[in-house]
């Protein structure tokens, strides 16, 4: 008899989702796929498990890596068959990132996203709502570039602690 508590095969959807906390976002390795809000559900039928995943950015190269890692993690936990089902609707939003995930991003040096609801189309020449610096908390920051090391992040700099930082853009 396998015991989920010692790493045996998960028996319920909640246990499967818990097991997926070992799968990190390859581009932001402090946050796992559950905290990222892309795991939409799971069903277990004996040795077969189906996980529903909603992709983040349309062109995100991490999507395929994440799918492979989910498969690997669940096979390692004793499943014979792992089905990763892509769910396109409703579309993923950064609003689904869990509060603990946001705090991990901030500690890692990435300012977490604000609400995705409204994005001002032109900020040039207008006082933009500053993104707080993840290092010192100051709001005396400016956006240096709309696109950073990945499509989901922009580049900012802090005028208080003079550090550059990235911001996970609201989407």
């Amino acid at each position, binding site marked *: 008899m396998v015991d989920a508590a010692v790493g045996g095969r998960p028996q319920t959807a909640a246990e499967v989702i818990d097991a997926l906390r070992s799968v990190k976002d390859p581009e932001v390795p402090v946050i796992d796929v559950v905290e990222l809000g892309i795991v939409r559900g799971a069903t277990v039928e004996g040795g077969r498990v189906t996980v529903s995943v909603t992709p983040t*950015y*349309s*062109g*995100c*190269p991490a999507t395929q890596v994440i799918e492979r890692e989910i498969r690997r993690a669940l096979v390692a936990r004793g499943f014979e068959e792992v089905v990763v089902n892509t*769910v*396109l*609707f*409703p*579309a*993923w*939003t950064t609003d689904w990132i869990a509060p603990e995930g946001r705090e991990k991003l901030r500690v890692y040096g990435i300012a977490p996203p604000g609400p*995705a609801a409204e*994005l*001002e*189309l*032109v*900020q*040039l*020449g207008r006082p933009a709502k500053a993104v707080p610096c993840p290092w010192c908390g100051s709001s005396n920051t400016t956006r*240096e*570039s*709309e*696109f*950073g*090391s*990945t*499509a989901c992040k922009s*580049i900012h700099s802090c005028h208080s602690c003079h550090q550059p930082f990235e911001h996970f*853009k609201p*989407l």
Partner: protein
Amino acid sequence: MPAPLFEYLLRIGDDRLVLGHRNSEWCGHGPILEEDIALANISLDLIGQAQLLLNLAGQLEGQGRDADTLAYWRDDVQFRNLQMAELPKGDFAFTMMRQFLFSAWANLQLEGPIQGNHEDLKGIAAKAHKENRYHLRHASEWVIRMGDGTEESHRRAQAALDELWPWTGEMFQQDDVDRAVAEQGAVVVAADLEPRWRAAVTDLLGRARLTIPTAPMRMTGGRKGRHTEYLGRMLAEMQIVARSHPGATW
């Protein structure tokens, strides 16, 4: 005749594949590092959107074609993109002006599938719409900087606008495909796309101190597979590896 929704998906998928490829030509050639990265990221978004749309098109068609098959194994006359998307990248002003005119249109046009009744398409369009708002903001800010910048940047931005304007009319043409997808409920086709786009574009170009050309918006044919000489050359480069080594993986 292919199913209207398949045809519709090819159109909006090919727009993004072709424009994404054109923008990707800046990779390693951007005027500054941040712009190099920004254009590569915009390309990534557009090509990602194209992949989702073309995969869905292939699924609906049901003949085993996926996004890769559709991207690499069709010839120019089978592409359905706007002609504006295939024009060479030009200078930085031309690339940004095109992105601005296209993104301002996409910002309104994508509301159609978002409000429709096809779930997967709604999801793809909703995500694309959000990504597009960043593209629109980025391009809008550059149009203002260049138009209201130095004499040289103003000259280039106005020249880009003058050259692109005749190609914009194609974005607003509607035909049997639009009527059919509207009838089946997959897309809500708006009749007022052009005046809304014109109002948004006029406002921004005014802030950029640029003059809207009076030339007619006359270039058309991309939706029917009629393209400029530039698309064939672009596809030759884009498709050569896939066609030389069919089925290759790495």
